[in-house]
């Protein structure tokens, strides 16, 4: 019933009535870009929310608003959660950034946590994930597994988070095969199973034999399975949709971070920060390596171990930009600021980056 009410945009009244008899609990709100049932991005955030509820029991009470569009609607929805008495609010998509900052100014006593952005305030923390570390491993696998040497990449929006992934994938692939190519299609949507499937079909029809995606549904995986090529899952383990197709998947493991931050609010130790966690902190987890020969699996595991230990940084020179100019000198590594604002392709990507 809860979900139904939400879909009817009556979440506000619901949350308010729920507030009265829960004085001592920390109320935590979540804003989701898609439905928790997308089995991708939002699904994993919702898993994190559930883990928090499980770990902290009756110390917390959580609410979520799903499928909130980025933009003006987001501001209203975030404010709704704040008015309903939530003291900690997670806004889980890049496009909520400005809305989060705006609402945070109106509610100085509420703590906000914005995922994948870069604007912080006294009561707005930013948490980010180095998904690109997982993309590098995928690139290594792709270059080993692809017969034609071209992978298809389905992007959502040309924002730094996605561009990082494409570049890291490319560099990982080039570490194995310097001539590897990536074809990119922008779906201009985070979640549209039909369109994602169409994009996957277009890529396969143009001859790629490996597909990776940075959109949230399992549709591309299903297309890959149908066309008998290999693919990488996104955000959650999608092996059920391609038992003979999925090579691995980047799994976003938000639970530990959510638990830690909720605890900090309860203890009164919450401070704003801008963190960028990856494999080392176990925020980026890889699904089991499947459907590949043992030597590829071994190489993937080694690459993953090196990245987790810090011995290998995906953005290490020499790296050229797509236009041929030098980006990183031999041995030079990109700093986080450059990574977080990445708006160019590295050499080898067969696409023009929309600006």
């Amino acid at each position, binding site marked *: *019933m809860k*979900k*139904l*009410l*939400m*879909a*009817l*945009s009556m979440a506000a009244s619901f949350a308010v009535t729920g507030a009265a008899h829960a004085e001592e609990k920390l109320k935590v709100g979540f804003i989701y870009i*898609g*439905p*928790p*049932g*997308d*089995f991708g991005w939002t699904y994993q955030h919702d898993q994190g929310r559930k883990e928090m509820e499980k770990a902290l029991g009756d110390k917390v009470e959580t609410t979520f608003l*799903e*499928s909130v569009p980025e933009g003006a609607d987001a501001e209203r929805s975030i404010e709704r959660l704040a008015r309903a008495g939530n003291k900690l609010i997670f806004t889980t998509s890049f496009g909520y950034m400005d809305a989060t900052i705006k609402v945070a100014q109106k509610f100085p006593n509420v703590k906000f946590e914005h995922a994948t952005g870069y604007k912080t305030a006294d009561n707005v923390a930013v948490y980010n994930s180095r998904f690109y570390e997982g993309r590098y491993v995928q690139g290594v696998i792709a270059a080993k597994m692809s017969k034609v040497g071209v992978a*298809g990449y389905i992007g959502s929006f*040309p924002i730094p988070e996605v561009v990082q992934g494409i570049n890291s994938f490319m560099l990982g692939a080039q570490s194995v095969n310097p001539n590897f190519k990536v*074809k*990119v*299609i*922008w*779906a*201009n*949507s985070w*979640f*549209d*199973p*039909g*369109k*994602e*499937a*169409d*994009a996957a*079909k*277009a*890529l396969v*029809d*143009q001859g790629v034999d490996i597909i990776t995606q940075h959109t949230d*549904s*399992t*549709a591309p995986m*299903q297309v890959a399975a*149908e066309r008998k090529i290999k693919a990488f899952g996104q955000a959650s383990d999608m092996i*059920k*949709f391609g038992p003979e197709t999925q090579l691995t998947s980047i799994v976003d493991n938000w639970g530990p971070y959510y638990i830690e931050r909720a605890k900090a609010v309860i203890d009164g130790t919450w401070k704003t920060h801008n963190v960028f966690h990856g494999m080392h902190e176990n925020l980026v987890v890889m699904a089991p390596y499947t459907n590949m020969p043992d030597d590829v699996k071994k190489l993937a595991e080694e690459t993953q171990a090196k990245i987790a230990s810090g011995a290998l940084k995906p953005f290490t020179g020499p790296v050229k930009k797509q236009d041929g100019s030098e980006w990183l000198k031999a041995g030079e590594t990109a700093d986080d600021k450059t990574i977080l604002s990445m708006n160019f392709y590295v050499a080898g990507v*067969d*696409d*023009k980056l*929309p*600006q």
Partner: protein
Amino acid sequence: MGMFEAILLTVATAATPLLIAAMGELVVERSGVLNLGVEGMMIMGAVAGFGVAQVTGSAWLGMFAAILAGAAFSLLFGFLTLTLVTNQVATGLALTLLGLGASAMIGESFVGLPGVRMQSLYIPVLTDLPVVGKFLFGQDPIFYISILLTIGVTWFLFRTRAGLTLRAVGDNHTSAHALGVPVVRVRYLAVMFGGACAGLAGAQLSLVYVPQWVENMTSGRGWIALALVVFASWRPWRILAGAYLFGAVTIGQLHAQALGIGIPSQFMSSLPYLATIVVLVLISRNKRLTLMNTPTSLGKPFVPDR
């Protein structure tokens, strides 16, 4: 499989749900009722189709369940707007919101399950013909239904007495009533037909297009279908043209992107909408013809004894 053939097939898959849903809505609007709940009925069809196919293992049973679910859900709209004479616009919008929410609730346990795919037709020799073989003889059953539906609706509306009655109800319900036509009953039937079509379109999504269930998987296709009806100026063949044009540009822009042509992807993504609107506006420039086809009583409530 050649590139052209592959594109043709993908276009058909993308166009079919729009065609079916719009064709249903066309009949509804021709009877003078504006049902903005297409998206909601479509998603109910998608969840019912997926669920029943999942439980029974038969995509066909899933399809029939989707048709029934769409029709049943539209009855709610019919009861509210035709019997209780509520505002059609508001009720239609509510139907969409309710459908999106209710389908999410019903489908919660289906999330993450691989679906049952509806098998495509295979006729030896014919399906293997080069270029058009797969397009004409190797597609899923719902594609053929969508074409038959277009022919059927055209024939029904313009070649049968019942179709004439339906159009009369849509053009002037008071006169039709005076002539003894059961206006409300005709509209109930039209609304249910529209619901059934929307349900079938939903089934195409969850059994053919992407055989899975996820919340909100229609992603606005119901609204595009609604727009197609208006832009096609309530004529069946134009809906077919509009749906395929929309599908062709959608798929075409993806291919153009994959080829690495340097046109901004944001513009490319808006192309299907732009192209469809421009073309349909151009073909409906003949004002007299458009006016002739617009159901005059569209959206107006009808109370027999007033």
